[in-house]
């Protein structure tokens, strides 16, 4: 009698524990999802246009693109380069050095050419290129 009573209580406790775990999982999933999935950043989604006349030879222009920093450079030869301004090392924003005509990451002294290729320093890869077109003297980025 005592044995079966003990067994019954153990089965009940097991059931309650299983129910508790299921309830916890059911509640925690939406809670975790609420935290984990970042809301879409709709700002600047899509394309950006810049008049060609607004760009000066040998200068860079920084702007926000798809939620991150980007840069367009009008190189000395007149060609354009559109790059992500986020250093692939630790995410700092690169600075344009007009005199040297290159990019410097101020965090860990990484240097990049005007086309984004790594010259020196710790960056593991080049600055990401962003596609662009030039039509009727207007640069369309993205």
């Amino acid at each position: 009698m005592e044995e079966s009573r003990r067994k019954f209580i153990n089965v009940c406790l097991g059931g309650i524990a299983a129910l508790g775990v299921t309830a916890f999982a059911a509640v925690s999933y939406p809670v975790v999802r609420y935290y984990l999935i970042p809301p879409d950043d709709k700002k600047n989604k899509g394309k950006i246009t810049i008049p060609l006349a607004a760009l000066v030879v040998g200068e860079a222009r920084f702007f926000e693109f798809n939620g991150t920093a980007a840069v367009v450079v009008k190189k000395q030869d007149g060609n354009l380069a559109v790059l992500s301004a986020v250093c692939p090392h630790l995410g700092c924003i690169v600075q344009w050095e007009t005199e040297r005509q290159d990019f410097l990451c101020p965090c860990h002294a990484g240097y990049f050419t005007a086309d984004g290729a790594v010259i020196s320093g710790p960056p593991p890869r080049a600055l990401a290129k962003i596609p662009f077109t030039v039509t009727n003297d207007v640069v369309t980025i993205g």
Partner: protein
Amino acid sequence: MEFFKTIYNWIDVRLGTHEIITEKRTGYLLPSNVNAWYSLGSVLLFIFTLQVITGMLLMLYYVPDIDKAFDSVSFIMTEIPLGRLVRLFHAVGSSMMLLVLLLHMFSVLFMGSYKSPRELHWLSGFFLLLLAMGISLTGYLLPWNQLSFWATTVATDCVSSIPFLGESLVEMLRGGKQVGIHTIGRFYTLHVGLLPAFIAILIGIHLFLIQRTGVSTPPFGLEDSSNKWQGEHFEYEEHPGGVPFFPNFFLQDMISISLYLACFMVFVFFFPNMFIPSTSYVPANPLVTPSHIKPEWYFLANYQTLKLFPSEIIGLTVQAVAMAFLALLPFIDRGAEKHPLKRPLFTVCAIGGILLWVGMTLWGLYS
């Protein structure tokens, strides 16, 4: 006086408070060779309480919004009576908390107090250190200035080098691709809600563990300084003829807290810019990273390690291995000897490790 006695008696007959004081405090004996280093735990408890109080005062005026955070902190500093003092207490206090935590850890390390049966004490202390670093990092972003913005960007970006999950984890931490409106909300929630709660719970666990096992005996001034614990059954480490916690060691605690306060006030009143440099007075600009951006002093060694290795993942792995080694030290160092001079290999390695950390910190600062 008679009035207070009546109140005391009223409480005593209901809760037995006199018994708590005589048995648990005056009767709570510490080793007869106990030293001042043992009071660092009380100093830390005091600092944590002060951080909670000043933090709550700051919350009265602080607004966790990217357009208002910087101005609200400026308002606290310039318009609120004693606001500057409260902010400085909180900012300097966070650094001092980590400094005292490290000193507490070093004293435990050299006195061998982490050895069996106190592995869990060490582990809970280690996690408290991680949580203290976490709460400092999350609080650092909140003033939303150039320094805090970029130090947080660099710190959170480190996670991206974790294979496969890195990018998603960074987005989860930041609430977006870069540090922004969702990051400040997440960090604020962690800083004022989750992390203080975890720290309070872990402090409770740490104190409970000390109460269960008894205070460890320092290895100094003894002929036999080896660990006596056999590992066969639970045993409370008693110290017959030792020093009563109250009033004797309580007085030592008060002396240590007063000394700490003296040092703390020197920083608050004479060197406040050491903790709030000039880049802290410029609002955050996500398109311009200031030159020579440096994290807070307690992350400088990690920062320099990342700079040193050509690959980010190697730099992170080295740090993870070092941290894991520190966490698991009581399980690795199984020797019975506790006196630092009687275990030269350990002492040399420990001093070497500390010097390496200090060297990397200074290198990070001046590079």
